[in-house]
């Protein structure tokens, strides 16, 4: 400040200068600075704005007045009010100002108000050029300043010469300004150097030696520009304001900034190595010399440059920066600098900030140039002074320079670790960020623990507010360091758990996955040879450690939620950390807790592990305690649904794993939690319900359970009686035990007694999460079972069902069982065939249901529906244990594993469907084998078919065969099926796309073929009209045919009324019998019947039921809301068989959506949950299009526009998809008995919603509307022509986009052609009782087809 005072006296003038502003302006300034509010200020400014704009536009404003007005404009703009009206006046005043004083202000205003590239700049050029020639040094300097601020590349050539001319001006002020101006020019136009080589060769070196120090500094700055090419020049405005950049101003976002930067780099490439070499020779000696002069303070013209006892610190910084640039890649150049750098380190250190600024620059220079050990040492020593200072600014620089040094050699940072960590926790965010960057740079295996611990502490306590970007960066840094340098897995896991706790939502979910993988894989080594456990104590402890740390967390979590104080005792808990709560706990952490404790909670019970635990831990985390904590977590009302599901699964795993090692205690809390949740939370959440029921099943069935406190209230006194064999779990155990032993023993016959816990262990295996598993897609394990079934005498359907439910018949038990075992599944999940069946005690039904929505009615907690077993039970439902949930990531294979024993008609159904869709041939090998062995009576079926049939009946309906095979019992595995199955493989793809469709067998034939092909005792069944024999078969329990074919629940397709009315004549060949693929054991068909004319009921399903069940017990439902299903009770067809019909309710408003399914479930009296019999995807329903003809009358939409033949013709050519259906065999028109075929056809078509456009002789042209998924309703045009030979041909055209998949358009057209043909045929078909098509009695859309259809069927 001494300098300042001295100068103040010297200048004197300045100190006394008062404002020359007018009273008006001074009052404005005072008013603005006194303004009490933003609003007040704004109103003042607006008033001023108006006043000023009118005043400035007055004529003849004096220069003096204008001078002030311009300042007032600057003032307004500074306060945020754009006053663009003043800009031109600034330019004008600069041009005409007469006095230096006015010129100064005018140029100043121009520089402040305009910017480079402003449109007014060009108007300044002449003024600037003139003033450059001025004799007044001040005027020249104003012109130079303005030129450097505003001149752009285009204007530059005019100015360059005069500016350069001033480099030798007599006044240092002008020389300095000229150099500054040139710097701006170079930034705009780097090529100037090439254009004017003497600049670099002569003028700049001369300037560097100038007597005046301001000139020298300007030269330095110009060199800086030449060397760096303004690397970061032209930063868009958005870069200044973070908020602005994010606000998404177009082109100004972060991407815009980056793009601008890239453009700048391209436009201003850094000097090439060759150029740099030239610069080195040119610059290094003078710069070194200059720095030497700085240090000696022997600069001429240096008055006033000393600052705080340091000579020109800013210029030294500039020199050092240039030296660093020059020495960076050159040992030679660096070596020339070493002495002066060393000198700088020693000389400048006098303890003032300016000296530190120079010191910092010197250290950075030393770090950047070719390394010199001595220099590094000195630099590191100097660093200590920064870091040990209490001044945060110095610490900041110290850390920054330490980071520079550590880049060359991290060891420099080690002595300063403590200081750095202090900075981290200083509460100063700037400092902390720098420190973290440094720490990340110097971390290694040795210090990572300390570093990361500090980082986490910083996260806990640090000043970074949540959501701060820096927090995320820090988390990423911690993860990165931990992954790179973790000294041990234990440490890594512990650290990550802490990290999740502190900032879980910022941690990548991948980290949690890694940890779980690590725990699963690393810890698993010990299990393979437990004998070696002692030699490798670390590996086994990993899991112990992980489980323990997560268990502690769980305990705290639960305790916090329950308001307990135990959480605070935990040494790991940091007082600063936000309390854990189920609401705020990071999702991944919760998942990790549930998974790890669930999977590996048992390790804490291991005596070997307990040796490593403190007695307190052993006591706190024994098996029952873990279960208790899990249950308490489960009970938390605020737990997320996903969290609850995880917690249930955790409970199950804990239960099962602990039961393996002996009796365990189940805390009462578990029962309570399950009971309460079942009552209050589960309904509506199927997944949770499923899991809870499974958990409850485990709870009650665990035979070894001893209740801990005796206070368990299971809600059922029958719990005891239910225990053990309840729910079929032990049945399953028995079976799985057999499987396991057969695999082990190689022969199923001498199976060992199953271990009681084996099934649980298989379902919830210990430590199997990282095991590989194989899937045998052929399901060869079923072969033996199927064979055995085939050779067995027939059983009545009812008894089959009963036994099936009881599980008696499921054991296949033949010696061939192990054939599949040889092909070697490697995992614990085995697919070998059944062996050594064990008879379980027949059981009763329980309330545990399948996952169908109907099951949610079982919510009453803990009250198994223990009704007497007067009816077949529903054990299969038990097998729908949600294995996916249980086994975490191994859902598919376990589900498959389950599907085998559980039976195809139970929970396996979804899997079955998946298999079918994937074109897996379930049990194919078995079929093939049988086929070869015994070619059977199915052959006649093939030979019976019409001559134009290109594939066997079976091949037309491969899916029904699939499912016959899949259910393993439904279709008797007979030889005749084999060729069909083979053909199906070949024909599957073409069958769906062939145009036109080959003429198939009749509906009945197909039904029969599909169901009874190869029934050995009734070879004639296929060749005869099928329906009677089919019903015969059904109604006659003594008949071996259906019995041997008996499915547990046989689902049969039955013909619709149209078929029955027309029988025995085949209905027609428009695919009325379309088996539904994917429905196990079921045969579904869609019949174009009279209902079709009403626009509905295309699907019929009939189910054969055991006696004692009513058709009302069959429940049909569809997954798509556009289909309604109406069940149709039917009279009994025989002593043991009931038939239920289901009718898809009308209207069928659209083509089946891609995923519509029909679901068939069986409701058994006394059992709450319906049994799923399977489901059929409707999308595989071919021929469903006929039902999609829309009644255009009620929708006078687009089809109505086809009113004339011309319309028809126009539209016809535009519709891309065409298909024809030529038909033969029209009934001969009896003399007078029947109307002409054309007329009948017309009536039928009209009834089928086609609209007649014109009838020309024997040709009909029709328009219609069809429903479609993709395009809604769409036009359809049909052309029908009758030929003299009693044949006719239908040609249909449909628009693109009619089907969801455009490629299916042709197929849709084909279906429609068939459908139209079918309508015609039906209309012409003779027969008693035939309804006239298109009768007024046809129900309107929405009304279901009349039930007589099915009734008539049964009349047969």
């Amino acid at each position, binding site marked *: 400040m001494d300098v300042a005072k001295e100068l*103040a006296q010297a200048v004197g003038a300045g100190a006394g*200068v008062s404002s020359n502003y007018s009273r008006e302006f001074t009052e404005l300034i005072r008013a603005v600075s006194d303004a009490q509010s933003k609003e007040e200020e704004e109103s003042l400014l607006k008033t001023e704005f108006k006043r000023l704009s009118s005043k400035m536009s007055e004529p003849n404003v004096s220069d003096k007045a204008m001078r002030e007005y311009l300042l007032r404009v600057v003032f307004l703009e500074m306060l945020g009010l754009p006053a663009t009206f003043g800009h031109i006046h600034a330019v004008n005043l600069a041009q005409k100002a007469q006095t230096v004083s006015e010129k100064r202000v005018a140029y100043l205003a121009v520089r402040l108000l305009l910017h*480079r590239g402003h449109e007014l700049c060009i108007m300044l050029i002449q003024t600037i050029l003139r003033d450059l020639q001025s004799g007044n*040094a001040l005027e020249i300097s104003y012109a130079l300043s303005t030129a450097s601020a505003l001149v752009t590349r285009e204007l530059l050539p005019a100015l360059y010469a005069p500016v350069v001319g001033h480099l030798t001006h007599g006044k240092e002020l002008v020389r300095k300004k000229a150099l500054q101006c040139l710097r701006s020019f170079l930034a705009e136009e780097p090529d100037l150097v090439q254009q004017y080589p003497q600049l670099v060769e002569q003028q700049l070196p001369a300037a560097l030696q100038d007597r005046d120090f301001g000139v020298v500094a300007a030269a330095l700055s110009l060199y800086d520009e030449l060397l760096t090419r303004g690397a970061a020049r032209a930063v868009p405005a958005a870069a200044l*304001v973070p908020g602005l950049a994010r606000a998404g101003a177009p082109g100004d976002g972060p991407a815009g900034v980056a793009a601008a930067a890239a453009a700048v780099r391209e436009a201003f490439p850094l000097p090439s190595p060759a150029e740099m070499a030239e610069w080195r020779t040119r610059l290094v000696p003078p710069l070194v010399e200059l720095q030497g002069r700085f240090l000696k303070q022997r600069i001429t013209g240096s008055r006033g440059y000393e600052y705080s006892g340091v000579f020109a610190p800013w210029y030294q910084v500039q020199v050092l*920066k240039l030296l660093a640039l020059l020495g960076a890649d050159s040992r030679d150049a660096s070596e020339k600098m070493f002495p002066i750098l060393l000198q700088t380190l020693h000389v400048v250190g006098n303890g003032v900030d300016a000296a530190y600024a120079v010191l910092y620059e010197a250290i950075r220079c030393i770090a950047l140039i070719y390394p010199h050990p001595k220099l590094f040492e000195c630099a590191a020593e100097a660093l200590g002074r920064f870091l040990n200072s209490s001044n945060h600014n110095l610490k900041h620089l110290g850390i920054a320079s330490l980071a520079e040094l550590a880049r060359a050699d991290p060891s420099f940072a080690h002595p300063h670790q403590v200081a750095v960590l202090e900075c981290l926790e200083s509460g100063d965010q700037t400092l902390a960020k720098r420190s973290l960057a440094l720490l990340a740079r110097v971390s290694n295996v040795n210090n990572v623990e300390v570093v990361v611990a500090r980082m986490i502490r910083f996260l806990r306590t640090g000043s970074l507010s949540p959501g701060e970007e820096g927090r995320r960066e820090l988390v990423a840094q911690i993860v990165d360091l931990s992954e790179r340098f973790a000294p041990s897995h234990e440490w890594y896991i512990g650290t990550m758990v802490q990290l999740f706790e502190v900032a879980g939502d910022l941690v990548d979910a991948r980290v949690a996955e890694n940890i779980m993988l690590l725990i699963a894989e690393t810890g698993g080594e010990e299990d393979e040879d437990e004998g070696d456990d002692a030699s490798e104590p670390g590996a086994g402890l990993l899991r112990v450690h992980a489980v323990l740390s997560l268990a502690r967390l769980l305990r705290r979590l639960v305790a916090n939620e329950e308001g307990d104080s135990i959480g605070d005792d935990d040494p790991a808990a940091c007082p600063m950390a936000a309390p854990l709560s189920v609401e705020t706990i990071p999702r991944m952490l919760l998942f990790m807790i549930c998974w790890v404790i669930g999977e590996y909670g048992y390790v804490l019970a291991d005596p070997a592990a307990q040796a490593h635990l403190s007695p307190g831990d052993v006591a706190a985390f024994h098996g029952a305690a873990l279960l208790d904590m899990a249950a308490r977590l489960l009970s938390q009302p605020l737990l997320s649904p996903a969290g609850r599901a995880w917690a249930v699964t955790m409970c199950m795993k804990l239960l099962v794993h602990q039961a393996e090692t002996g009796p365990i205690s189940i805390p009462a809390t578990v029962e309570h939690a399950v009971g309460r949740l079942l009552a209050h939370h589960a309904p509506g959440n199927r997944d949770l319900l499923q899991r809870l029921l499974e958990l409850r099943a485990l709870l009650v069935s665990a035979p070894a359970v001893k209740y801990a406190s005796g206070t368990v209230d299971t809600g059922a006194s029958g719990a005891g009686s239910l225990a053990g064999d309840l729910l079929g779990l032990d049945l399953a155990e028995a079976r799985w035990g057999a499987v396991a032993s057969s695999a082990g023993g190689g022969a199923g016959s001498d199976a060992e007694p199953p271990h009681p816990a084996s099934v649980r262990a298989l379902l919830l295996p210990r430590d199997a999460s990282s095991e590989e598993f194989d899937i045998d897609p052929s399901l060869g394990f079923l072969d033996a079972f199927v064979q055995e079934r085939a050779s067995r005498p027939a059983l009545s359907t009812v008894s089959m069902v009963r036994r099936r439910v009881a599980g008696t018949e499921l054991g296949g038990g033949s010696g061939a069982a192990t054939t599949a075992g040889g092909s070697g599944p490697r995992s614990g999940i085995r697919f070998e065939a059944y062996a050594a069946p064990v008879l379980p005690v027949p059981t009763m039904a329980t309330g545990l249901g399948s996952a169908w929505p109907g099951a949610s009615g079982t919510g009453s907690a803990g009250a198994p529906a223990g009704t007497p077993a007067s009816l077949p039970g529903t054990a299969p439902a038990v097998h729908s244990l949600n294995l996916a949930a249980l086994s975490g990531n191994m859902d598919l294979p376990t589900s498959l594993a389950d599907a085998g024993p559980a039976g195809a008609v139970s929970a396996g159904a979804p899997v079955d469907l998946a298999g079918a869709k994937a074109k897996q041939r379930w049990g194919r090998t078995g079929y093939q084998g049988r086929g070869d062995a015994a070619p059977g009576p199915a052959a006649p079926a093939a030979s019976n078919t019409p001559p134009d049939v290109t594939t066997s009946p079976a091949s037309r309906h491969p899916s029904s065969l699939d499912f016959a095979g899949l259910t393993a019992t439904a279709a008797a595995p007979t030889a005749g099926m084999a060729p069909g199955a083979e053909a199906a493989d070949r024909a599957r793809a073409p069958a769906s796309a062939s145009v036109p469709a080959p003429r198939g067998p009749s509906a009945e034939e197909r039904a029969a073929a599909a169901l009874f092909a190869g029934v050995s005792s009734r070879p004639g069944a296929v060749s005869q009209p099928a329906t009677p024999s089919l019903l015969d078969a059904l109604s006659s329990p003594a008949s071996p045919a259906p019995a041997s074919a008996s499915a547990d629940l046989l689902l049969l397709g039955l013909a619709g009324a149209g078929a029955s009315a027309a029988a025995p004549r085949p209905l027609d060949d428009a695919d009325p019998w379309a088996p539904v693929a994917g429905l196990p054991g079921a045969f579904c068909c869609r019949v174009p019947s009279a209902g079709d004319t009403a626009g509905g009921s295309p699907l019929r399903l009939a189910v054969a039921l055991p006696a004692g069940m009513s058709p009302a017990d069959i429940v049909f439902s569809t997954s798509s809301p556009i289909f309604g299903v109406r069940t149709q009770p039917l009279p009994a067809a025989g002593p043991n068989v009931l038939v239920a019909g289901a009718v898809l309710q009308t209207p069928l408003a659209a083509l089946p959506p891609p995923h519509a399914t029909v679901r068939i479930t069986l409701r058994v009296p006394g059992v709450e949950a319906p049994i799923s019999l399977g489901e059929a995807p409707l999308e595989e329903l071919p021929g469903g299009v006929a039902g999609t003809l829309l009644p255009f009358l009620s929708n006078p939409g687009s089809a109505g526009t086809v009113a004339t033949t011309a319309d028809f013709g126009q539209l016809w050519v535009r519709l891309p998809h065409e298909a024809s259906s030529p038909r033969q065999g029209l009934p001969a028109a009896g003399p007078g008995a029947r109307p002409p075929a054309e007329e009948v056809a017309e009536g039928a078509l009209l009834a089928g919603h086609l609209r007649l456009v014109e009838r020309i002789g024997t040709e009909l042209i029709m328009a219609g509307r069809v429903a479609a998924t993709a395009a809604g309703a769409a036009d359809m045009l049909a052309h029908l022509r009758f030929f003299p030979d009693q044949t006719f041909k239908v040609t249909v055209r449909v628009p693109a986009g009619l089907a969801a998949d455009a490629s299916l358009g042709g197929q849709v057209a084909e279906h429609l052609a068939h459908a139209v043909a079918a309508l015609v045929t039906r209309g012409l078909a003779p027969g008693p009782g035939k309804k006239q098509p298109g009768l007024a009695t046809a129900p309107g859309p929405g009304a279901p087809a009349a039930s007589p259809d099915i009734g008539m069927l049964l009349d047969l």
Partner: protein
Amino acid sequence: MIRYVLVVNRTGQTRLSRYCSGASMSPESRALFEATLARLCLGRSQSQCSFFEHGEHQVVYRRYASLFFIIGTDRDDNALAILELIHQFVISLDSFFGNVSELDLMYRMDMVYSLLDEIVTADGSIAETSPAAIAAPLSLALGGKAGLSVTDLLDPAFH
């Protein structure tokens, strides 16, 4: 490279704003930006360091009474040198006006800008750091009143 030089008071009112090359913002967004910076500076304690990062730039600030002198620079610039430059600027103002105050900045706005122009060039480099040389051209321009010539202020060696 210096990107901007600002003087903002505690209530976020701008008393001086000078943006160096490259940044052309509207007056409204400038005022907003400046108020934001003032708020950020206010949020920092005396003991914390005088630098922080904002946007793409490093902000260096120094507080004098109710005024924040703020300079925005590139991130790798020598922050301490900039901090000292602020002080040198204030010294220059102080020496020119004698005990400079917030009102001086407003009432003698043109002079303040002229002084700053000597210190920081239009494209953001540090030009002059000697208070005498900083004040010289302005004093000369005001010469009629001050009665001083520029040569009086400069080093005699130049004569």
